């Protein structure tokens, strides 16, 4: 809401400097976005009191040496004259006509005045210097709006009303400021100059002055020939109409145009401007009809008939539905109620009689219609938030007064007024206890009443602790005691209230174990050298199809009803596609990547309207295994076993028991270099996820150059649910016996299986197993390989004897050979 200060001052005395007023407003819930100053102190272009003044143009003559220039004889102080060279097109009409008999007021700037250059783009300050122009000395000028910083208008000089006082400093005549306030939905009462004046009066201890319009009526009363019928009684709490006859359509007065412009409205003509002016001044949107276009002089408020159409002022034709509300005559729709007028009854240059509508509408229907028609206007904005029905009488008076004064109209006596809903009368019982309970501060009833009274709440003390608070009609935001507590706090000052430490009972403390473990997973992966990424939950099937082409046709994705772009149209079902897109960027930029992401994916459920949101962890690593530097050369690149190492680390750090790995084939992974992680709990086995090297085709689809890209995506909830706390194993004080055993086994026998056998046969004495060599070669024969393990045996109770170690070794060899078809390599 843009508030011109001069307009505000009509209704309240502004006692604070502008900056202080702005701070006070901001601290009271009316956040000041910006302050624009025109000519006054503090503005970007202050208008010098002595050098920029109001003048009168007495005569315009041709410049002797230039066709397109004229000489204007101006009076810039009573009885003081000067000749100004100008090319302004809007005074050419008086050229060569001799002394002008009517006043032509303009703005005169003397040498030395600082103005904006009218002839260059943007705002460039220049100081006015005298110089001859085609042989005539030019040391003063007549100013355009642009030169004064009032607007970008530079078509001609700014002409002022005839009564502008000659010689008065322009800053006194037109100097102003506009305070732009971000009005929150509950502050709709301040979407007007008077509403803002009320609030400022309450905040600064002043009294608001409401306009007191005077209207002289004549002719036949409105109800002699005009009728009003409200059919849609639930949607129109009150409707009023007045009639103004014999209006003249012309531009509105200068001051009104100026105020409208500063408030952000474009002046059109006197009728439209007056309508807008009263909306801005009183917060009551209204509408003017060409009364002669209203058939049978009968206004009907009703909902639309199915298929009915209406062409609105913006030239669009709307097809209406039965939940749309219209203002009509008996033959056709005239306007979309509270949203936009129709073309057929629009006030035109030919209009002589104006029917003035001021009404209030049920807010939600206005919002629905303005949304449906995409017609968000200043009027609909106010109606959606609530307009005070008690303001309509004043609004009609003000409208007819201005039409009488500035459109030369004759106001018909009377006002049609159909009132469906009685005036809102809300009284709230407020106790000192309640104020204490909500705000935490003890106030007496007198203190509360003193805080609320300036806001026009009527307070009646019932007893020492209880007030009955009457709510003004325009405070539609107040209906609970909580609303009144806010007003008490606001008037007392939020910053003046105490700040205390909660003394309330501390709730039962509960541990969020899953979250703690999730934090831990992030920490483990970061410690493993991976960078945590967070990628978009919104994605496209095209992106998912890079990983697995089958996704392109999948119906399993949650689809946005209103996507912003095709790239972010679906909710992801896996993390890897978006993470790989980030990885691709990193690989192209840096030749490597080490990323992980912990986050939710979204899976549609057949039996619930909300999707499942499983928690996943995804990992992408590629490029050099170690950072290279001048002193750390490493040619090794990441492969399958790096991602496996990370997965193993995660399982080990979370103390997962019962995990195993199986070779697998998946569309996105390279065959032979892909695995699933399986968690066996009791007799049930769960697939935790998969890992391996990205399939070269998938890699190409992500536009990653030829290299091994190792990826994993795991069900984190499953992992977290089975994580456990490490159990301490006592550290033996007795020496260990190391045995190196190499087994030759068919390649199909997994290392995992051989290791499991070793564990089985070594029993309690096993301290650790390390696979230290894998070898396959012609000397071993086809289809077999050698796996060499270093097995550490150790007792916690005694030193193992050579004999025990030898027996154990033999038992392990026998067992492994038997279980796996392996042979010990001698």
């Amino acid at each position: 809401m843009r508030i011109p200060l001069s307009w505000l001052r009509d209704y309240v005395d502004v006692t604070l400097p502008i900056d202080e007023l702005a701070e006070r407003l901001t601290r009271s819930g009316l956040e000041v976005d910006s302050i624009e100053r025109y000519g006054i102190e503090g503005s970007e272009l202050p208008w010098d009191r002595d050098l920029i003044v109001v003048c009168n143009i007495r005569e315009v003559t041709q410049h002797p040496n230039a066709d397109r220039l004229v000489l204007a004889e101006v009076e810039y102080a009573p009885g003081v004259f000067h000749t100004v060279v100008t090319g302004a097109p809007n005074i050419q009409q008086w050229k060569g006509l001799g002394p002008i008999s009517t006043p032509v007021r303009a703005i005169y700037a003397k040498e030395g005045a600082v103005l904006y250059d009218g002839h260059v783009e943007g705002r460039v300050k220049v100081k006015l210097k005298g110089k001859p122009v085609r042989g005539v000395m030019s040391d003063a000028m007549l100013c355009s709006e642009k030169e004064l910083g009032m607007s970008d208008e530079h078509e001609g000089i700014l002409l002022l009303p005839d009564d502008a006082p000659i010689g008065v400093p322009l800053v006194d005549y037109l100097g102003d400021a506009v305070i732009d306030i971000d009005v929150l939905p509950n502050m709709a009462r301040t979407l007007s100059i008077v509403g803002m004046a009320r609030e400022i009066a309450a905040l600064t201890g002043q009294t608001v002055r409401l306009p007191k319009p005077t209207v002289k009526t004549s002719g036949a009363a409105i109800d002699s020939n005009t009728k009003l019928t409200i059919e849609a009684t639930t949607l129109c709490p009150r409707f009023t109409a007045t009639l103004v006859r014999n209006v003249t359509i012309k531009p509105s007065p200068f001051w009104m145009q100026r105020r409208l412009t500063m408030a952000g409205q474009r002046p059109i003509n006197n009728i439209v401007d007056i309508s807008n002016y009263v909306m801005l001044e009183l917060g009551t949107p209204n509408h003017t009809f060409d009364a002669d276009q209203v058939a049978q002089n009968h206004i009907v408020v009703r909902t639309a008939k199915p298929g009915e159409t209406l062409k609105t002022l913006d030239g669009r034709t709307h097809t209406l539905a039965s939940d749309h509300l219209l203002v009509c005559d008996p033959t056709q729709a005239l306007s979309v109620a509270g949203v936009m007028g129709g073309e057929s009854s629009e006030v035109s240059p030919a209009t002589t009689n104006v029917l003035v509508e001021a009404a209030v509408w049920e807010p939600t229907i206005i919002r629905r219609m303005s949304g449906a028609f995409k017609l968000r206007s200043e009027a609909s904005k106010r109606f959606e938030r609530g307009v005070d029905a008690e303001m309509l009488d004043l609004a009609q008076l003000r409208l007819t007064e201005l039409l009488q004064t500035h459109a030369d109209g004759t106001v018909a006596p009377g006002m049609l007024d159909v009132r469906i809903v009685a005036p809102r009368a809300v009284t709230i019982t407020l106790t000192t206890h309640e104020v204490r309970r909500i705000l935490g501060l003890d106030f007496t009833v007198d203190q509360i009443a003193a805080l609320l009274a300036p806001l026009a709440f009527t307070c009646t003390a019932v007893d020492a602790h209880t007030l009955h608070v009457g709510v003004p009609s325009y405070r539609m935001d107040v209906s609970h005691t909580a609303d009144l507590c806010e007003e008490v706090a606001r008037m007392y000052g939020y910053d003046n209230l105490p700040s205390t430490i909660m003394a309330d009972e501390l709730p039962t403390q509960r541990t969020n174990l899953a979250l703690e473990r999730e934090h831990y997973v992030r920490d483990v992966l970061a410690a493993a050298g991976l960078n945590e990424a967070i990628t978009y939950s919104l994605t496209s099937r095209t992106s998912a199809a890079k990983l697995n082409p089958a996704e392109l046709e999948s119906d399993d994705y949650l689809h946005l009803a209103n996507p912003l772009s095709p790239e972010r149209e679906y909710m992801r079902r896996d993390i890897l596609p978006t993470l790989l897109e980030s990885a691709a960027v990193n690989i192209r930029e840096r030749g490597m990547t080490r990323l992980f992401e912990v986050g939710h994916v979204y899976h549609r459920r057949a039996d619930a309207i909300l999707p499942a949101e499983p928690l996943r962890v995804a990992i992408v690593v590629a490029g050099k295994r170690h950072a290279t530097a001048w002193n750390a050369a490493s040619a090794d690149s990441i492969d399958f076993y790096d991602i496996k190492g990370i997965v193993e680390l995660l399982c080990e750090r979370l103390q997962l028991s019962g995990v195993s790995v199986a070779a697998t084939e998946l569309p996105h992974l390279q065959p032979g270099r892909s695995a699933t992680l399986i968690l066996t709990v009791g007799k049930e086995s769960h697939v935790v996820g998969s890992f391996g090297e990205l399939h070269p085709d998938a890699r190409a689809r992500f536009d990653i150059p030829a290299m091994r890209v190792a990826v994993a995506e795991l069900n984190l909830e499953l992992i977290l649910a089975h994580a456990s706390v490490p159990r301490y194993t006592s550290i033996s004080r007795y020496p260990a016996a190391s045995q190196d055993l190499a087994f030759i086994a068919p390649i199909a026998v997994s290392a995992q299986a051989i290791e499991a056998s070793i564990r089985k046969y070594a029993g309690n004495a096993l301290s650790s197993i390390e696979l230290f060599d894998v070898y396959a070669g012609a000397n071993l024969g086809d289809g077999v390989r050698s796996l060499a393990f270093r097995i550490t045996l150790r007792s916690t109770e005694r030193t193992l004897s050579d004999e025990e170690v030898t027996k154990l070794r033999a038992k392990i060899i026998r067992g492994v050979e038997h279980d796996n078809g392996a042979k010990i390599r001698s």
Partner: protein
Amino acid sequence: MSIIDQLAAIEAAALAALHDITTVDALSAWKSEYLGKTGQIAKLSRELGTLAASDRPAAGQRFNAVRTNLDAALADRETTVNAAAQGHAFASEALDVTLPGRPLTVGRLHPSTRVLRMITDIFAEMGFQVWESSEVETDTLNFELLNIPADHPARDMWDTFYIETPPGAEKVLLRTHTSPGQIHAMRAHAPNPVRVILPGKCFRYEQVSTRHEMMFHQVEGIAVGTNITFSDLKGTLIGFAERLYGSGIKTRFRPSYFPFTEPSVELDVECILCGGTGCRICKHSGWLEVSGAGMVHPDVLRNGGYDPAIYSGFAFGMGPERITMLRHGIDDIRWFFSGDERFLQQFI
């Protein structure tokens, strides 16, 4: 020449020889030459038996004295020689200490994760527990139960992504704020007191720009009990701001509007970049918005399962990305979800 004279000659020769020794090898050769089992002194000492019995004790003492003397001289020389040898070794191993160190491969947490943890940790110390709720929500939870009915102008405050649902089904959306968690948490605790902090991902139907993202994180807090006031809200948020920005940070509480709180408040802190004098970041106001908050609206308390005549509470919300941007001077929010390691590796 008497044995004693011979001994003196050996001693003199030994000391002279020792003086010139500069290597560890020569030292051990010297030691066996003079002090070894077959060294000169040991050989000479075998002739002690030829002396008269009365002379033997004195001669023996003399031998011991010489040995002690030579041992001490040897130890001295060893120190000097070792130091010199070490000095040579050090010189040959000297490095250019200005060359870069060997890089470690370390990973980092996402800056939003860091800041989310900082925020939740501060509130955890005040007795708030972390509570999470789903990212895809119903219109009822995201709006209706928070006092934001359909066709209410306040809906303009949240531009919303909706999920396609069959006609007639309940509207499903991507939560626009973590506030639905308030209802979930209250319903899980009522009528017992609740004090939780709700971090999570949120979504807004918003064109992505340097300052706006369609996806972001939010942290919501709510405390409900029988004795919780607006003053407690102030104390809690001031305590938080002082922990995050340092004690003594200036704060400002101004009335605001959220449909689910009444009274509502916006907490500003003095701009941490300009110190309140006004800059581009604080839009020349000297203040930065940190948190929207308020006393839980009676209707919302009721929707959460509490009788608003008995229970009261406060709620607050804040954006960790904004806090992170201010903390690290990040000028473009779009980096947060880019997964670009040139961005991620800039943080600790």
